[in-house]
């Protein structure tokens, strides 16, 4: 029996993924060492790229795998940000502890929200999530202790808690954001590699068939919704820790935290881990390239997203997969085939 | 007699699933022809392909000598092919009369008008202001036939007229169909109820698994051959 079990082998990594893992490790080492050789501007840009990748991975998990097309993820970005400012400013909590609590808090809020929005399907679900985030924005603008319409700022003592030196502080904030983004991407990757990833991918491809094979589709979607809210809250806290200020418009901005994120995912390739990276790079590239011309980069991004959706709906990486069967993040499983005996083949 | 409909190596696909394989059919003007076969044999697909609801090669379907395989469904109706779809498919939010009037969107002139359809199906005149779903199955089938006639077709495609109807209602429907074809309208009848289809037609084509298995006149054919073609036995 043991021999038989041994005889069935399954491979996870591919040649491309091994090469990529080495390159990614090198790139990561470079990014971690950035504070020692880059300037504050570099760190700000990379940190921004890092949190956008995380948001894109999360939205992709939600919409690309679990089929939950939410346009209200800004609710959890804002919640995370507000929680950080509230806990540090009003409760005098340690800034690291506050950042860690902000995520689970967003996840907690997502539970009652899910009871409401999970009653809705398709477009209704999308609009419902958006309205919920508008409700949060309006509540934030009404609550005095959250600074009402004008919002909250991080005070100097809180910042000095991180470090009294500005350069050190920038480096710590940068590394925190990088770490959080790595954490989120890692979680998404490990999740998709696990048996739960198998279930999610199955749900993405056919929901009724997954249920008929024993996958608890509702339970899986519910957990994914709560988990993405938690991670989105954490990223939200770190975004506004960088920005030092939060207001209802900035915290709960659909354009900043959901629309451009959706564009990134769709352009890069929905339903892939590689896609969000590609989409983010295109977004950042357009913005930096057209930085002197106002918001034309957003118009261009919108146009690209429309063209991709109509002409190549699986996105850039989806096109690459179809052509070259390339996997940089090996979530798949390959059965190592052995020649069959003649008798078994019939 | 002139050839009205000719298919040459007609194939049809749902995605990458091939539903029809090289079907060759010739139908003369004025004929009534039955298409029979078991479930999944491709009968409905055949009608839908001729009506333009499924794409095929332009030369695969010739209507009055003109290649129509590549045309859209709404263009094909305008050329004179009307469909009575399986399950009637009346528009539920329209009244009976509005459903009939929808047939005029093909903008074809000819003998059929509201008045004539009501003469053929007097019951529909009484029910004309009711919403379509409130009709019985047989009345809905009459409305669906009337709607197709309103486009003054040269070729009438009828998909499973008897589906879900009581035998007495089916008899009535087929009587009316006889009246329609007697005026020279060519008809293709897809049916699972073989006896009914064979009674109403002069020739039949039997489909099996997407292929043409047998064709014969309805008088004096080999029943054993039909059974074999039908079940693929």
């Amino acid at each position, binding site marked *: 029996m043991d021999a038989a079990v041994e005889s069935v082998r399954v491979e996870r990594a591919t040649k491309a993924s091994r090469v990529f893992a080495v390159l990614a490790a090198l790139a990561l080492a470079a990014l971690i060492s950035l504070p020692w050789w880059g300037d504050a501007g570099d760190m700000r840009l990379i940190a921004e790229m890092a949190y956008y990748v995380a948001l894109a991975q999360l939205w992709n998990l939600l919409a690309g795998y679990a089929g939950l097309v939410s346009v209200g993820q800004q609710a959890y970005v804002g919640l995370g940000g507000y929680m950080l400012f509230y806990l540090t400013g009003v409760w005098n909590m340690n800034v690291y502890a506050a950042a860690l609590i902000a995520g689970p808090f967003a996840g907690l809020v997502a539970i009652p929200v899910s009871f409401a929005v999970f009653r809705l399907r398709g477009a209704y679900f999308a609009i419902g999530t958006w309205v919920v985030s508008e409700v949060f924005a309006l509540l934030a603008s009404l609550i005095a202790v959250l600074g009402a319409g004008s919002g909250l700022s991080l005070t100097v003592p809180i910042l000095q808690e991180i470090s009294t030196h500005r350069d050190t502080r920038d480096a710590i904030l940068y590394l925190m954001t990088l770490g959080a983004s790595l954490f989120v991407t890692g979680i998404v990757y490990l999740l998709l590699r696990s048996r739960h990833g*198998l279930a999610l991918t199955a749900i993405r491809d056919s929901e009724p*068939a997954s249920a*008929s094979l024993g996958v*608890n589709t509702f339970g899986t979607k519910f957990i994914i919704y709560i988990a993405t809210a938690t991670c989105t809250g954490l990223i939200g806290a770190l975004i506004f820790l960088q920005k030092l200020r939060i207001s209802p418009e900035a915290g709960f901005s659909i354009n900043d935290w959901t629309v451009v994120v959706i564009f990134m995912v769709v352009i890069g390739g929905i339903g892939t881990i590689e896609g969000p990276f590609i989409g983010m790079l295109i977004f950042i590239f357009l913005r930096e390239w057209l930085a002197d011309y106002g918001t034309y980069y957003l118009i261009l991004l919108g146009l690209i997203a429309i063209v991709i959706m109509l002409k190549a709906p699986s996105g850039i990486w989806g096109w690459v997969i179809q052509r070259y069967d390339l996997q940089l993040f090996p979530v*798949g*499983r390959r*059965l190592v*085939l052995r020649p069959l005996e003649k008798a078994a083949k019939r | 007699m002139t050839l009205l409909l000719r298919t040459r190596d007609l194939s049809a696909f749902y995605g990458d699933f091939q539903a029809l394989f090289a079907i060759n059919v010739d139908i003369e003007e004025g004929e009534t022809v039955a298409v029979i076969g078991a479930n999944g044999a491709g009968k409905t697909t055949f009608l839908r392909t001729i009506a333009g609801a499924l794409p095929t090669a332009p030369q695969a379907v010739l209507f009055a000598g003109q290649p129509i395989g590549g045309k859209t469904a709404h263009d094909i109706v305008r050329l004179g092919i009307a469909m009575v779809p399986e399950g009637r498919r009346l528009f539920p939010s329209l009244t009976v009369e509005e459903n009939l009037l929808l047939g005029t969107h093909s903008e074809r002139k000819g003998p059929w008008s509201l008045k004539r359809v009501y003469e053929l199906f007097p019951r529909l005149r009484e029910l004309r202001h009711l919403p379509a779903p409130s009709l019985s199955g047989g009345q809905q089938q009459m409305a669906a036939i009337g709607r197709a006639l309103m486009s003054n077709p040269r070729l009438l495609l009828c998909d*499973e007229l008897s589906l879900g109807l009581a035998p007495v209602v089916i008899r009535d429907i087929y009587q009316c169909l006889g009246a329609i074809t007697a005026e020279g309208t060519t008809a293709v009848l897809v049916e699972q109820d073989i*006896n009914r289809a064979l009674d109403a037609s002069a020739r039949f084509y039997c489909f099996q698994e997407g292929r043409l298995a047998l064709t014969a006149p309805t008088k004096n054919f080999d029943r054993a051959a039909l059974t074999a073609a039908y079940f693929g036995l």
Partner: protein
Amino acid sequence: MTVLLKLENVCKFYGALKAVDDINVEVESGEALAVIGPNGAGKTTLFNLISGDVAATKGRIAFEGADVTAKAPHARCRLGIGRSYQIPHPFANMSVFENLLVGAIFGGGVTERESYLRCSDVLKLTGLYDKANVPARTLTLLQRKRLEMARALALRPKLLLLDEIAGGLTEHECAELVRTIKDIHAQGTTIVWIEHIVHALLSVASRLIVMNFGQLLAQGVPREVMANARVREVYMGIPVS
């Protein structure tokens, strides 16, 4: 013989349409049951009721003596009900092997490592071993039909529901598939099979039921049922030779 599946007065109504109307059926353990009936007779709805894809309007469904009427599809699957769909629903972007893993892990309730061997065996049984690592979207229709069946087999079902698994196949392909289904049945799996290709059905099934207008028209030994005059009339409209 023990009763594996029992339907008592099961109904499914869509408004005025009685898709399944007061059906009583028992399936015995180890049996192979064939279901036939004209288009729209309610055969697929019957499967959907058994697998839990649609909820019964009335009636009771018991599996191994336990009431499963209110259970979700995934829960029924975990009890041992596997099914295929008439129109294949492959997980198009996953490999064939991964398609099977979903059934083995979530429906079969084993760990991922334990399921590898099982999936490998099912792939061999269903003739998909060579295709294990290709994306399911690249399969031909026959292979997709086989995948439907293989995926359901990977969960080691006690009851396997096959919905027109042979539809749209060539004669040769159909014969091959019938052989596989015979093998599966021989290994002890109970099978309920909807099909229009009667000769294929009859080469496997020991009992036949005929549905019409959502109701049970006849049931019994296949040759006798097929000889039944009402069945001939309803199903074909003419006498079967």
